[in-house]
């Protein structure tokens, strides 16, 4: 008995000493191991190193200026210098003054733009938002003087991380992989940002899908996604908090995409199954020393361009004609398109719009690998089974405004088998489909079209009812 007690106490003590989750300050972003395990161990390490260098860790994030992320910057002037302490005044006109008062600036750097330290960065240990006093991490070689100007960058990332950790992480995961602790209980699964694909956007998909804009992400956070577990976060989160979270999510998405890009590139030559090849180590070393750094920049540039491209003027899909009047005729035309071969909606959404079309019963092919899925039904790019929307329920995940439905039909839903129809359908046809889709939940109340006389009408079953 006593031995058992002793061992129990020993276990408890060990537990106390080890703590619960290890050292949080050493937390790292999870690797995309499904992809990374296909690489040679050395190549895998190289990818990790690149990501650590350019993105850092959750608690020690790095603002990679090559990416189109608004890291948040605040301009200001030095008031006085006292050893390590810099008393400053912020430029109130700075557009990002929101969130400035947060201590998030503490671990940011100050970049001096004038005076002896111009062009130099000072790393900070502390920031007191009440007195606006910074404390530098180490003694300054050439201390800035009064009236020197500076830019402090990076507080959105830090503020965003804190908010993300509090509100988003338990579903979307630390690295945005959609695999947080609560994720496994949810259906549909939370979005995995790492493909950089977001479903409900205002941007187009032809010829190539365009990324989500900041406003698209904001709309989703503000309105939630009915029919899923994504709730609305407004009015709980304020404007500056939304901004910070959105930048952080974009940053995570870019990180995931760059990770995937690097792995895909390295996989060509340095996949795991080539570990026995002669001279592969040497070749990898040469590659990492010569072409690789350029490639890292190249892919970051590519990914960045896609994201900044989405923010450009005119990326939002807007109809060229106003909505066709919602008449019985328009709905009827929509219904014919819905059932017809031109739009092919019925193949997935089913004849009554219940989301049970023939495609959902068939084995589908994975469009990227060309392999047939082991199970029946449709799958999205995250390899999750997905159901076509049941239109009779009146729940519209991407919004219920006519323009939202228009965009779903025109653009499709990115990452899912719902295709864009901008090429197949005319403007009028899309509006007819919108009118029909919005009428499906209320089908029984719909005004009846005057029926052309037919034989069936005079059959005994219906009598002469008209």
């Amino acid at each position, binding site marked *: 008995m006593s031995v058992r007690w002793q061992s129990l106490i020993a276990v408890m003590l060990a537990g106390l000493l080890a703590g619960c989750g290890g050292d949080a300050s050493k937390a790292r972003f999870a690797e995309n191991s499904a992809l990374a395990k296909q690489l040679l161990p050395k190549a895998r390490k190289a990818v990790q190193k690149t990501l650590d260098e350019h993105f850092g860790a959750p608690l020690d994030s790095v603002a990679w200026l090559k990416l189109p992320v608004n890291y948040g910057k605040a301009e200001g002037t030095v008031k006085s210098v006292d050893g390590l302490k810099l008393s400053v005044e912020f430029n109130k006109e700075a557009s990002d003054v929101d969130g400035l008062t947060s201590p998030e600036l503490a671990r940011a750097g100050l970049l001096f733009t004038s005076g002896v330290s111009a062009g130099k960065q000072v790393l900070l240990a502390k920031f007191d938002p009440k007195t606006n006093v910074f404390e530098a991490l180490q003694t300054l070689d050439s201390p800035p003087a009064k009236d020197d100007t500076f830019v402090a960058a990076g507080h959105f990332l830090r503020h965003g991380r804190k908010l993300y950790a509090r509100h988003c992480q338990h579903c979307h995961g630390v690295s945005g992989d959609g695999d947080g602790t609560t994720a496994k209980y949810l259906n549909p699964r939370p979005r995995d940002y790492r493909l950089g694909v977001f479903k409900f956007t205002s941007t187009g998909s032809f010829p190539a899908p365009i990324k989500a804009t900041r406003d698209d992400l904001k709309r989703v956070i503000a309105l939630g996604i009915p029919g899923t577990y994504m709730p609305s976060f407004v009015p709980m989160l304020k404007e500056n908090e939304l901004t910070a979270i959105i930048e952080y999510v974009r940053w995570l998405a870019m990180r995931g995409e760059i990770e995937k890009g690097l792995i895909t590139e390295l996989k060509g030559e340095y996949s795991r199954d080539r570990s026995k090849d002669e001279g592969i180590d040497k070749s990898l070393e040469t590659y990492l020393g010569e072409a690789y750094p350029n490639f890292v920049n190249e892919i970051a540039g590519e990914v960045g361009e896609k994201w900044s491209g989405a923010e450009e003027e005119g990326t939002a899909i807007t109809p060229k004609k106003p909505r066709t009047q919602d008449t019985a005729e328009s709905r009827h035309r929509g219904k014919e398109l819905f059932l017809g071969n031109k739009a092919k909606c019925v193949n997935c959404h089913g004849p009554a719009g219940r989301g049970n079309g023939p495609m959902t019963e068939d084995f589908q092919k994975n469009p990227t690998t060309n392999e047939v899925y082991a199970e029946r039904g449709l799958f999205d790019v995250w390899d999750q089974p997905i159901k076509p929307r049941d239109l009779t329920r009146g729940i519209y995940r991407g919004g219920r405004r*006519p323009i939202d439905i228009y965009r779903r039909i025109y653009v499709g839903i990115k990452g899912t088998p719902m295709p864009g129809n901008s090429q197949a359908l005319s403007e009028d046809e899309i509006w007819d489909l919108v009118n029909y889709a919005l009428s499906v939940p209320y089908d029984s109340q719909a005004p009846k079209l005057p029926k052309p006389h037919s034989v069936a009408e005079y059959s005994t079953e219906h009598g002469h009812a008209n």
Partner: protein
Amino acid sequence: MRKFWCLFFMFWPIAAIVYSAMSPAYGWWFPGDSVTELGQRIDNLFYLILIIITVVFIGTQMALGYALWKAAHNEDEKAHFSHGSHNLEVIWSVAPAVILLFLALYQMDVWRDFRVKAYFPEGTIETPIAEVTARQFEWRIRYPAPGKKLQPKPQPDDLYAVNELRAPIGRAVMIQLRSEDVQHAFFLPHLRIKQDAIPGQIIPIWFKAEKKGIYELLCAELCGWGHYKMRAQLTVEREVEFQDYLKKLQTDQNYDGFPTSDSVAKKEE
């Protein structure tokens, strides 16, 4: 030492009373006066009970203190064992029973006005202004189109909002409360309204807000890990503003990328 124990046991009730008396000054109290008349009546009930229990508390504590103090100085008399006093038992059973019965009867009209449908203010039942559906972890709100009645089932022209309930000032209005998943509680602390939302039930709640403002709407039933996220707001505004809001919702909801006649050049957000 005997005196020490007397003082020790007397210190705590006094500390409790001082602490309670200080509470309002430190904001540990109601969030301001109720903005509904019914809420004020609920507050009055609360204060009545507070007064009764304060009197009882002070009385019993003083009696206890007196007994302690007196016994501490009483060297002559010895304690004796007793099987109890029938008269005392009757007194301390009947007295609380009378108080409780009084409260049960006295609060009845407030309860009736708050809960009994037949006593809801005229016009509220026939024309609920909105249906509020709680779900993990948000409040989804459905208004009827301006000039129409809210139907139990969604209608094509219904208007939808999330986490933002609006109501006109000075008019008794009713909402229908539902839950889509688990049990939630619709809590408007400034209006003194707290009502559980139960899956499968439609529960009517009425209120008549007398003061313009934005009030917190919270979930007051632990409904899951995201319970804290259910922080919405109730905006009480003038009737005209409320109608304008509904019209704006309608315009937004019918937005097809083109400005309509009632929204001048609304730019795509």
